């Protein structure tokens, strides 16, 4: 059984936002919509403060609250754990956005362009009318994964089968792969480091792990 997850090593992330740019470029999201964000946070109280960069987005939960509340069954879950949205079923009620503890869902009511009312040449080819008026979010680049695995490639190891944000990460902070592959790089990485998942108390079992060891408690 395959369960794709993402790992963000908070010790490595430098907050360069290359993953954000790569996602935006690859997925053609409208202005203001970012499926892969990197938060730039300051924690603690002066003078004992830390700065930390936190990649965030859809956590592809094993128990996705967005799927539970979705009235149209537009939100689904693949056998490999990736949480999906069927744009043809979604009614754009945004209830999923209320249910997501990770603030990972977006919806735009009309096409927006970066420069004025007309799309640029690139935007015109990327606008994706089916994504207007419906909920959208990170897909873990499911299309790339499917195309890659169909060619016998391994997601997380072969770039052609790996999410764009992971491919673009300059510091190796973002990793992707099958956590069920017990001898694979993801399972090994998690076994050798301390990690946490966000909002575990909600029972969502997110598929997004944050490595933090040797840090402050």
């Amino acid at each position: 059984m395959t369960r794709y997850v993402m790992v963000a090593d908070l010790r490595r992330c430098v907050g360069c936002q290359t993953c954000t740019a790569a996602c935006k470029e690859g997925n053609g999201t409208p202005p203001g919509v970012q499926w892969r964000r990197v938060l730039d946070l300051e924690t603690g109280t002066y003078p004992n403060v830390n700065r930390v960069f936190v990649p965030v987005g859809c956590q592809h939960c094993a128990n996705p609250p967005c799927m539970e509340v979705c009235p149209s069954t537009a939100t689904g879950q693949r056998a490999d754990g990736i949480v999906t949205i069927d744009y043809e079923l979604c009614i754009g009620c945004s209830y999923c956005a209320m249910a997501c503890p990770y603030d990972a869902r977006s919806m735009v009511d009309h096409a927006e362009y970066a420069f004025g009312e007309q799309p640029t040449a690139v935007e015109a080819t990327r606008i994706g009318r089916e994504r207007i008026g419906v909920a959208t979010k990170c897909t873990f680049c499911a299309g790339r994964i499917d195309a890659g695995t169909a060619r016998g490639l391994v997601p997380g190891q072969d770039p052609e089968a790996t999410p764009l944000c992971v491919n673009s990460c300059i510091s190796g902070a973002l990793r992707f792969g099958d956590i069920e592959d017990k001898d694979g790089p993801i399972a090994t990485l998690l076994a050798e480091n301390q990690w946490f998942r966000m909002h575990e108390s909600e029972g969502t079992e997110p598929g997004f792990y944050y490595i933090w060891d040797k840090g402050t408690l």
Partner: protein
Amino acid sequence: MSQTVTSRRQRHWDLRAAGNFIGGGTGSGLIVVAAIAAVAGEPFRLPLALGLGFVAAGLSLVWLEIGKPWRAFNVFFHPRTSWMTREGIVATVLIPLGAAAVAADSVPAAVLAALLAAGFLFCQARILRAARGIPAWRQGELMPLILATGLAEGSGVFLLAGAHAVPWLTLTLFALLAREGAWLAYRAGLAGTPAAARALGVFATPPARLARAAQLAGLAAVALALGFALLAAPGTPELPATLLAWAGGVLAALSGWGVKALLITRAAFIRAVVLPVVPTRGSGGRGSGGSHARAV
């Protein structure tokens, strides 16, 4: 160790969504009170029709808000887990059954409609409760607050429909007291939930204080009207009691609407990011990443 919280207000549900909870709550409450009136042998068709109108108006507002209104039928696809689907299903039975009760002047149908209305209101409360992203809605005490508020609003509007007799004033007073208790419990619950701190701040703003003042004024007006009704000597003019009942009814409804509008559009902060731990970058000790305060 400090936690970093970057919650922000939800950006998707505006007053149209709040209108569904306002119309649904008031309408459901009114239908329930109308059914009680029906069983008591009182006229019930007007308040029942009005209640159905509130429910329908609320649902219409939601229809105006969704991104793909012509796919609205898809809302019925997920009854297994979605309270929004269940709300829609209940509404599709409630509205025609209630209309039939009005048309046929049928007490049994009115009672059935009231049961469905209670179910509809319960679904609305569960819709909010299931929104795991928003601590102010996840609060367990919100369920009784939504239910009591619906009954308070509905009984308040029922007073406006002309029923000022002691039983209806007593019922309204009971509903307002129940809402008062539910409100205090909800506030206390929020105060005990760190993730809901920003929502608690919203309920300290001037609009919230105004709604709260209206809530208390409505309670006082209904209590006074009931006092007049109980204690007035025969032949005493009814106008003061009537005015007080009307004022109480208006305030009971408006204050509930105000609180719901704030709850849906202003107090709804998404949980967002909470870091239980923070890493220290670099090869040194804690100081390598933590000793230099830098502008973010």
